[in-house]
């Protein structure tokens, strides 16, 4: 699945974007499946806006976001759901777990949607990231770090061509970041997918094929 950006400019950031040369905003860019893209985004340049725009959560922009020739803004809700379950997955900066569900229920609500990963494998991933003991804890009671790890596992429970990540390891220490990177890379490879990671500072979490300043 190919991602094409054609002069995308978020309306709320339009004035700011006009003051500097962004590598993505207002540019025409194409990303092919399999690419590892790092987007370095200093504060206030629209890092979360970019991830939300690519994922179809925001429509307040000029230009076009095009997934496989289909303009995202014109994509119907049912098609958008299909894209989100089969082609594009996301790790949100704010995790977005269901606070009233347990960690395991948060996993199952996604896993049972696509049924591409077994419950045993999902449980093993939780174990690898060190939150197996939090399985029955309500998400609202978990620490940010634990929530982030559950959110990472949840994002990997579906088939995808692209994995979008918005500061995915911001709440993790180095050891847990390392474990999470290992798991993400393994599943991305298994899916022959590409990834777009947006973060504040340069990093070497993945062997990026492109690094762009937002």
């Amino acid at each position, binding site marked *: 699945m190919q991602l094409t950006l054609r002069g995308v400019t978020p309306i709320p950031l339009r004035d700011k974007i006009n003051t500097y040369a962004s590598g993505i905003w207002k540019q025409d860019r194409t990303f092919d499946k399999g690419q590892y893209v790092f987007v370095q985004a200093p504060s206030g340049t629209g890092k979360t806006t970019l991830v939300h725009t690519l*994922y179809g*959560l925001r429509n307040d922009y000029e230009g076009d976001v095009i997934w496989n020739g289909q303009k995202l803004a014109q994509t119907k*809700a*049912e098609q958008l*759901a*299909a894209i*989100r*379950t089969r082609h594009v997955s996301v790790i949100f900066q704010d995790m*977005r777990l*269901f606070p*009233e*569900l347990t960690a*395991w*229920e948060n996993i*199952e*609500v*996604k896993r*049972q*949607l*696509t049924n591409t990963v077994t*419950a045993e494998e999902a449980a093993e991933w939780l174990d690898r990231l060190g939150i197996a003991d939090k399985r*029955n804890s309500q998400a609202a009671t978990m620490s940010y770090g634990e929530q982030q790890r559950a959110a990472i596992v*949840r994002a990997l429970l*579906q088939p995808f061509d692209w994995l979008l990540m918005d500061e995915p390891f911001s709440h993790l220490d180095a050891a847990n970041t390392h474990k999470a990177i290992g798991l993400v890379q393994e599943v991305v490879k298994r899916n022959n997918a590409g990834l777009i990671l947006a973060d504040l500072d340069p990093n070497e979490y993945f062997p990026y094929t492109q690094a762009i300043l937002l």
Partner: protein
Amino acid sequence: MSAPTNKQILNKLLLGRNRSGRLWAALAALCVGTTLLLVSVIIWWDFNELLYGKDQNDSLGSTFLVIGKKVTDQNMGMKNATLFTSADIDSVTHAPQVQEVGLISSNHFPVYAMAGGDLAFATDLPLESVPDNFIDKLPGNWNWQPGSADLPIIVSSQFLDLYNYVFAPSQGLPQLSESSVKLISMNLKVGGNNGMPPETVRAHVVGFSDRIGSVLAPQSFIDYGNQKYGKPGAGSAPSQLILKTKDPSDTHFAQYIESHQYSTNSQNLRWSRVRAIVEAVTGATGILAILLMGIGTLVFVLFIELTIVKAQASLALLKEIGYSPRRLSSFMSRHFVPLIFGTLIVSLILSLTAQYFAAGAAARQGLRLQLMPGWPLWAAAAFCLVILLLLISNAVKNAIKKG
């Protein structure tokens, strides 16, 4: 630990915030509205059956009128001028408000009635016959064939009143109840006018009519007598017709009677008044029921919308992680649709119970209502079901789309 199913998780996310009391209240409102609507349909159907049905309910909704051609100074000497031709009958059949036309046949042969005992009398007797379905209280033994031992006769109840309240007191005769009159046996001397010997037929009064002011014998007897003893050239054209009318107070009907110079007793409007009241009552009940059904549906739809609004954050997040609006709508509908079916079934049971008691009450009044109402009830239930399903699926779809 058993793994939670997708349904259990969605239940927790989307329906977990509902208080069951509110759900029951909404369902009760819907049930009351639906039941009232179904009951009003049953009321309408019951009255329709009572007033216009083919059943033996005395055709309460119709008014019966006997019409004849006016005897005027111009036609009083003309032979057959007041008889109804087939064209006249056809015209009357198609007149406004006329539901059915019956020919009144009279005897064209002499009938002489005699009785012995304390109430001895002897008199010439005019007889008429009308089709059986025009007789208000048809006796069980209402038939006659040549050779039958007894001729049943129906007498206008006005004749008995005239005897009891006017004639008997003036003559010092005893007053007679209906049952005692039925015990009086009389002999009818029939015919003897055309060279053929007369025959004697034993007769009994078997009933009294409030509808027809005449003396009635079975059609077969009149036909037999007219054929055997009838005056030559008398023909079979009726001089009177009995009409079953829906509303004789209708101006078009009155104009028709007037323009054709027919005579009738058009005062008998009480059933049309009753019908007007019944129609007003059923109409008002229907409107009230539709209003309540509307309110009940609104309450239920608002409850569904409230449920969805409460679950808005979860719905939005579910859509973000890939749940399609269709899947979520289908989940919500699958939750609410069985409740609709359940409510309708409860409403149907309540309505049928009401009909059971109504039929019992009607039976005590001598009226027959069927225990199982006809197609209008099922049509109304199906209509309610379709409307509710459409409204609810629409409400769910719209609320989820907005979320």
